Each structure stands twice: as structure tokens, then as C-alpha cells.
């Protein structure tokens, strides 16, 4: 018997592969002429594979607003973040050892910077405001003579806020410092024009935009003159920046996914905006519900809500059979770690834990939102009742509840 699956609302973690993309991937896999190694372009099989890869390079470049020659294929955005940050740091280590980044970055960026910190680099960790937005002037003020890189994500993966990359890039350029942008969450959610914005390096991922997992890219604006030290050595593929035989079918899939994402971005975002508004408004009727991030300027596809009066692990346990969402903490055990993003925005540990991130996507329906609202509302009401939250704390004082019973 097939078990009824929960409604999928975790599209910020990963998206389903669009059927048009999977068709393209299968076409490349099944085509008897396309199994060659793109590095062996001296014969017809290699040349045919290379042609597929170069076509995808053009598709991706058009979707994100860069030159096809700027694209370095990687295994995903995590590798791209590593290549950008560690690659720049290593290449310019004699020039300077200072990097500027933000506390609310993706772990791939944070952990690279922490590793560099261990190795002796100095990292400036900027904090955004309560909406999650970074003041570009804070970046400018943190730049030093020995700064070799600034890394700021475009769309935050937990709360969906969008940073003013154009302004930050302009300030970085004025100081001659390259800007790296993790744009893994941007594609298909907002228009992207990396060159127009003045971004030096950008990390991209296919599977956040209805493409296959295991493929991504680092965009390096070759006009910038910025160099990287590779992390992977071998066959010298990708201009020596990322050795390894290229996965033709995955790259073709990424090209197709990005072309579709750019073409359908407006429609996708408008649909998601309507559904996200409905979700936030109807959950808001519960009272004691906080929306994280600046909803007005954030992407429509990410809705992060914190619920007062419920404990995070119980909230997730109460909804997990009906909806697949991400929580504000990793709470499988007592060693709960509240979201560092939400904590950086000033949310209390308890409220950060009682947070659900709803990732809406191209295939999310109004019925899915109905199910989510019903499920969350029922769970929150029940858990609040069990906690005595709705009984006005009649038995004991509210102060004791918050501060700790004697």
C-alpha cells in the first residue's frame, strides 16, 4: 500500500526536477553519440559532448547575465563557494589576509571563512539589521588595505531577504576588492544580471532551480583580472580551475533548468507571491506569529514564520506527517541548535526553534497551502493548549513561565 506523502514545501532546500529538464538529461544520457569525454574533442564523440556543454554554458550565462566564458562548472554551489573563497584567499595570501562576510551566510561560506580564520586569516563578520538586510555602508566601512575578498549572499536561504548586491559591488569596486555572491537561491526567484551588478564571483546551483543535483557553477568575471588557486588538480579542465571529467548530462540539465527558470521567473514569482501571502496571512490569524525577514523586499518563494507558545521540536513533530518543511533548528535530540540566521536577527532561542521555513515552488498549489495552513494551525492550537498558553497562565505567573520557575 502506498503511504500518503506529506505536501512538499521545502523547495528552498531542493526542488523537484522539472520534467522538461529530466527529459533533456535523459536525452543526453540515452543518445548514442553523446557519451564521449568533452576533454577528448579531437574525435567526434568528444566534440559532440563538448558541444552540449558549451550550449549549456550559453544557456546559464544568459540566465544569470554573464559571459559564457565566465562559467566554471562545479559539483554545486558549495564547491563553488569553496573555490571562490579558498581560491582567492590562497592566490592572494601574500597581498592580504582579510575577508569580509555576513553572519547570516550559508554554511558553505561560513565554514570556509572559519577554516581560513583557523589558518590565520582575519574575518570581519557583519550583522544585518532586524529585517535581515545588510547596510552596504557597513561593508565599505569594514574594508581594509589587506582585504582580499567580500562575500555576501544574494537571497538568504532561510528567510528570503535580498541584499543590495549592486550597491555592495559598487563600493567594493571603488576599493578594488572583488565581491563574491552566493546566488544559489536567486535563479528563478528574481532577475539576475551579474555583470550589470558588478559581481566578480558568483556561486550557482542547479538543484535549487528544478535542475539535477550534483552540478553547479562558479561565475568568475574574467574582465576583473581576479585569479584563483584551484582546489582540484588533474586534467586541467575548466581553464585549470576545476579539473575532472565534465558530467555532460547534468550540465545539459542545468542549462535547460536555468533557461526555463529565467523565462518563467516572473510567472513563477507572481504565483508564489499569491500563495505565500495567503499562507502568511492565514497562519497569522493564530496570533503570536512572526514573519522573519523583510517580506516586502524578499523573494516570494521563502516564507519563514515563528510561532510563540510552542516548542520547536514538538511543532515539527506535529506537522511532519502532512507537510515537509524545514525547522528553525536541527532538533532530533536535546542538542538543539537554533538557526544562527534567526539568532543573528535577534530572535530568542525559543522563538528561533519554533520556526518553520516554507519553501514554495513552481509545483506548489493552492490546495498545498490549504493543507499547510490547516496542519500548522491545528498543531499550534493543540500545543499551545497543552502548554497552557491559551489559558492566560492562570495557574502560575507568566513571569515564572518565561524566566524560569523557582
Amino acid at each position, binding site marked *: 500500500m502506498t503511504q500518503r506523502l506529506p505536501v512538499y514545501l521545502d523547495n528552498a532546500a531542493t526542488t523537484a526536477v522539472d520534467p522538461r529538464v529530466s527529459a533533456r538529461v535523459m536525452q543526453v544520457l540515452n543518445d548514442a553519440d553523446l557519451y564521449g569525454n568533452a576533454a577528448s574533442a579531437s574525435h567526434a564523440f568528444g566534440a559532440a559532448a563538448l558541444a552540449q556543454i558549451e550550449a549549456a554554458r550559453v544557456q546559464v550565462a544568459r540566465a544569470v547575465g554573464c559571459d559564457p566564458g565566465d562559467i566554471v562548472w562545479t559539483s554545486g554551489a558549495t564547491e563553488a563557494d569553496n573555490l571562490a573563497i579558498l581560491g582567492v584567499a590562497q592566490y592572494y595570501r601574500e597581498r592580504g589576509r582579510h575577508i569580509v562576510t555576513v553572519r547570516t551566510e550559508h554554511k558553505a561560506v561560513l565554514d570556509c571563512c572559519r577554516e581560513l580564520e583557523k589558518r590565520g586569516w582575519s574575518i570581519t563578520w557583519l550583522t544585518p539589521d532586524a529585517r535581515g538586510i545588510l547596510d552596504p555602508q557597513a561593508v565599505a566601512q569594514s574594508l581594509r588595505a589587506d582585504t582580499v575578498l567580500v562575500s555576501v549572499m544574494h537571497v538568504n536561504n532561510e528567510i528570503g531577504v535580498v541584499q543590495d548586491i549592486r550597491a555592495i559591488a559598487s563600493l567594493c569596486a571603488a576599493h578594488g576588492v572583488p565581491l563574491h555572491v552566493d546566488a544559489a537561491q536567486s535563479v528563478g526567484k528574481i532577475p539576475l544580471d551579474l555583470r550589470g551588478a558588478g559581481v566578480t564571483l558568483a556561486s550557482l546551483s542547479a538543484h535549487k532551480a528544478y535542475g539535477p543535483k550534483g552540478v553547479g557553477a562558479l561565475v568568475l568575471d574574467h574582465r576583473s583580472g581576479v585569479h584563483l588557486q584551484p582546489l582540484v588538480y588533474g586534467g586541467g579542465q575548466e581553464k585549470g580551475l576545476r579539473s575532472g571529467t565534465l558530467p555532460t548530462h547534468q550540465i545539459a540539465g542545468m542549462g535547460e533548468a536555468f533557461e526555463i527558470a529565467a523565462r518563467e521567473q516572473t510567472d513563477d514569482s507572481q504565483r508564489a507571491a499569491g500563495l505565500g501571502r495567503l499562507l502568511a496571512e492565514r497562519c497569522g490569524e493564530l496570533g503570536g506569529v512572526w514573519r522573519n525577514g523583510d517580506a516586502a523586499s524578499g523573494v516570494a518563494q521563502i516564507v519563514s514564520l515563528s510561532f510563540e507558545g510552542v516548542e520547536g521540536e514538538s511543532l515539527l513533530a506535529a506537522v511532519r506527517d502532512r507537510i515537509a518543511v524545514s525547522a528553525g533548528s536541527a*532538533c532530533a535530540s536535546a542538542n538543539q541548535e537554533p538557526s544562527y540566521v534567526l539568532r543573528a536577527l535577534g530572535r530568542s*532561542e*525559543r522563538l528561533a526553534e519554533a520556526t518553520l521555513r516554507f519553501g514554495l515552488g513552481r509545483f506548489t498549489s493552492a490546495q498545498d497551502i490549504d493543507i499547510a495552513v490547516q496542519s500548522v494551525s491545528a498543531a499550534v492550537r493543540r500545543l499551545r*493548549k497543552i502548554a497552557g498558553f491559551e489559558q492566560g497562565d492562570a495557574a*502560575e505567573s507568566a513571569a515564572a*513561565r518565561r*524566566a524560569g520557575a523557582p
Partner: protein
Amino acid sequence: MSAAPDPYSELTQRYFEQSPNAGILQGLGVGSAMAGSEAAGTLVQFHVQILQQHITAARFLAFGCPHVIAVASWLTETCVGRRVQETLPENVHALQRRFEVPVEKMGRLLVIEDAWIAAIRAAITKSRAALD
């Protein structure tokens, strides 16, 4: 596709989902007490009624993880009819085994124990006062 692996035992799941005896209790011989705090992630309150040296009813309120809610709920059900004792009906190690509570969560069971014993003491006092 199979469902996600369940981090909770069947017993924990059942008492978490149904949570019998959630609420408060008032009346003759009822004592209540709480332990823990929301800030620390676990807050438990018990209301226990003691008449003629026996527990006749119990309710609970809990802000906590599914294990905390399930154990608190089970205690309020299990205790009814028992002769009063200033201990849990089952010690925390037995409760840990019964509900398959991860060892890292032992501290939460101790919060339950503190609230339970304090509530029993309060109920004993109320029960004696009722007799006077």
C-alpha cells in the same frame, strides 16, 4: 516512497498525539506545582488531587518536546488510584527506557520529576487542610 524514519517510539508518538489529561484541575485536595522554564525549553506543571491517601485525578501542562509531553501525559494517567508517595510512579531511568528517551534528554525527565514531587507535596498539604 517510505515515510521518514520516526525519531519517537510508538508509545511516545501515541501519548504525544493524544495527550490525555492535558489541562488543569481544581477542587478539593488538589495541589499543583511547576518546574523548568520556557526559556530553558522545558516547562512542566502538574495538578494532582489526593483524597484519602490516594491519587484520584491528575492533569498536566507542558511546554516541551514530544518526549516531555508524552511522559507527563502518561504519568497523569498511570497515577490514578495509587497510594500517595513522594516519588514518581516509575523512576526516571525506567521512564527513559519505557519511552525510549535519548540519553541527552535525561535532564528533561528530571524537570518532570521535580514538578511531580512538588505537586504531590502540595496536594498532600491541600488534602490535610481539607480534612482539618
